[in-house]
């Protein structure tokens, strides 16, 4: 009797549990069906992203919705906003923080420094600090003079910094003056500019505010912002290369939002700037050090091997091997190395042409004040570099007509100019 009582007493509880289990299973099955259905139609609807700030009453959002609505709109559809990162997380600092400005009762950085990004993206910032995009980019125009001791140490620890540890301010930077350089050199080279808080770099140069889109950062057009023009025409060379043609004709099908660190040839069937230099691809791990896979200092007048270039080569070829076989890589690297040496030889020849002028004091003390200065500079800075970049990035027209041809032409003109100076000097004597 007692057992029956207990049984009937527990009957409602049994029903409740059985009912709950049934409801959970049915709801679960509906969710499964919906997820499957959505995932198979997701591609068609890509681009329609919810705005995480549409109904926000946050005071930053509310005010900036009036003051700078574009920024609020961009940030609303960003993955950062979806991840609950709020304006204050990146902008707000304590009173007295270097570079802080008082803003509506709090203190903010108008443009967050790398130190702010580092709070969540420590590894990326550390890799970036070891890269050419860091202090070497900035020092290339302003020299090491403005750097603190710590920053000098950081600069000299970067391969490009060890190559030119006592780099002076670039002469053209001084000649052109701030009215021009503000819109010229600085626009690109400030990617490595130290902030007031001592941290280095401007992440937003590549990760445009305020969407912080993976697709935007990965697309070659982003690199095109700086890597264009006669001094380093990587964008133009890429467009001419088989990789660039594949991108131009099929890139719209590629998986630009693929999870970092998981990329395969299914996502990117051909190379982009990021695939070769930054993305985890093949056996190469993801990095924000853009020099991590390079074997030469191609930027230099006479290129030298980079420190640990053999390790870098293994990393780069780890990405190449996803599409190219060993024989191709062996042949290509051997030939490209030889091409670099060939360009080096021509630049050495130009140095030899200039040497007697320097020894005899036939050049003015001021840089870039006579035609021969520009001719000598263009020869390696434009044409030598372009030829080398054309070789490595497989842009034949840039190796040939925009590269070595121009270099040879300038070399012959340089010889004439040097001879004239020497003859004039001899006649004067």
């Amino acid at each position, binding site marked *: 009797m007692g057992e029956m009582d207990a049984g009937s007493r527990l009957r409602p509880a*049994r029903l409740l549990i059985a009912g709950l289990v049934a409801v959970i299973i049915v709801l679960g099955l509906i969710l499964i069906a919906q*997820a499957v259905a959505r995932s198979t139609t*997701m591609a068609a609807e890509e681009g329609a992203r919810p705005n995480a700030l549409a109904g926000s009453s946050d005071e930053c959002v509310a005010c900036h919705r009036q003051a700078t609505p574009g920024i609020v709109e961009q940030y609303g559809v960003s993955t950062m906003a979806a991840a609950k990162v709020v304006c204050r997380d990146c902008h707000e600092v304590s009173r007295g923080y270097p570079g802080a400005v008082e803003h509506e009762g709090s203190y903010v950085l108008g443009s967050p420094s790398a130190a702010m990004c580092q709070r969540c993206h*420590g590894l*990326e910032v550390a890799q970036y600090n070891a890269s050419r995009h860091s202090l070497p980019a900035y020092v290339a125009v302003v020299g090491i003079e403005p750097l603190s001791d710590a920053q000098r140490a950081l600069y000299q620890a970067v391969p490009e910094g060890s190559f030119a540890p006592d780099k002076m301010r670039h002469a053209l930077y001084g000649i052109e003056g701030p009215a021009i350089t503000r819109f010229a050199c600085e626009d690109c080279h400030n990617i490595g500019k130290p902030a007031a808080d001592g941290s280095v770099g401007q992440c937003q140069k590549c990760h445009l505010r305020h969407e912080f889109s993976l697709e935007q950062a990965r697309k070659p057009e982003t690199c095109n912002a700086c890597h264009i023009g006669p001094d380093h025409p990587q964008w133009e060379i890429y467009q001419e290369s088989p990789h660039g043609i594949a991108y131009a004709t099929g890139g719209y099908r590629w998986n630009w939002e693929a999870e970092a660190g998981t990329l*395969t040839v299914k996502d990117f069937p051909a190379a982009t700037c990021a695939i070769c230099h930054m993305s985890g691809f093949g056996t190469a791990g993801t990095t924000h050090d853009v020099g991590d896979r390079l074997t030469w200092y191609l930027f230099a007048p006479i290129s030298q091997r980079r420190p640990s270039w053999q390790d870098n080569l293994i990393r780069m070829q780890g990405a190449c*091997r996803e599409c190219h076989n060993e024989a191709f890589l062996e042949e290509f690297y051997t030939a490209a190395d030889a091409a670099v040496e060939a360009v080096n030889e021509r630049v050495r020849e130009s140095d030899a042409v200039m040497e007697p002028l320097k020894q005899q004091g036939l050049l003015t003390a001021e840089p870039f004040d006579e035609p021969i200065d520009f001719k000598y500079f263009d020869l390696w800075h434009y044409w030598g570099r372009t030829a080398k970049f054309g070789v490595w990035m497989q842009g034949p027209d840039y190796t040939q007509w925009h590269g070595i041809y121009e270099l040879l032409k300038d070399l012959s003109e340089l010889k004439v100019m040097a001879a004239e100076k020497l003859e004039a000097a001899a006649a004067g004597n």
Partner: protein
Amino acid sequence: MTLLAELSPALERVRRRLLPLRRDQMMLLMAAVNLLFLGIDTYLAHSISGTIRPYEWIPIIFGPVAAVLLLAAGLIALRRRPLASATASIILLASIVVGLLGAYFHLRRALLPNAVPSEQISVDLLVWAPPILGPLTFSLTGLLGLSAAWVEEPPDSGILRLGRRRTLALPYSKTQAYFFMVSMGSLATVISSVLDHARTGFVNPWLWLPTGVGVFATVIAAYIGAIENRRRVDLIVYAGAMLLMIAVGVIGGVLHVLDDLTASGAFLLERFIRGAPFLAPLLFANMGSLGLFVLLGPEEAAA
């Protein structure tokens, strides 16, 4: 007579010879192993962003610590069962809390409270957010362990002995409760798998395998938990479903590892952390194993 004996007397004889542990001891051992692997899996999952926030360390640290403490409780149980039960209960209750808190944090991360109402929650957000059901594995493990920690007397009665004199009458027997837990665990596993695989658009036909098997196991386990009189054929179908779960887990584990290796077969840590989660498919195998262990009861006494 155990369910395994009903299913196959020969298997029961083999089990008695090879497996000296009782069902509840096996369940507690599985709870400890689960907590350890949950800690590792959580560490890998939380590492994806490259930054582990302070509160994200809670499950990472809790998992292995709880596993060690549970094993210690198992040793204490050899001499002082009440103390061991109390210790295990505290750990397992904490596991439930950790799981619920994690689910709350993950769900909060998935919602967009400031978006327009129709966009505040969507399947897409659930697909791309941290796995909402993932942390609940801690809770399920806690619940499972709690059920195992307390003695049911008489067997299959639903009456738990909480101390020397105190008892608690539950609506269902321990065996039925285990079946329901296996069902819920399988459901959570299959939902997590579907949400994860939804990111790939289900273009790979292999992805239908875990979905189908997971749903099948969920329904079968719930059914067999709800019915009072199980026939042998019911147990055969149930055991088959659990074996399929184990097979899916093993196949999935291998496929995930293959997917994480580069095309040339090279190992790259980054791909294992950020690519296909190689431990996740083992959850299928885990649920399948738990499901099979349920068949070891309801008798408490070992052979």
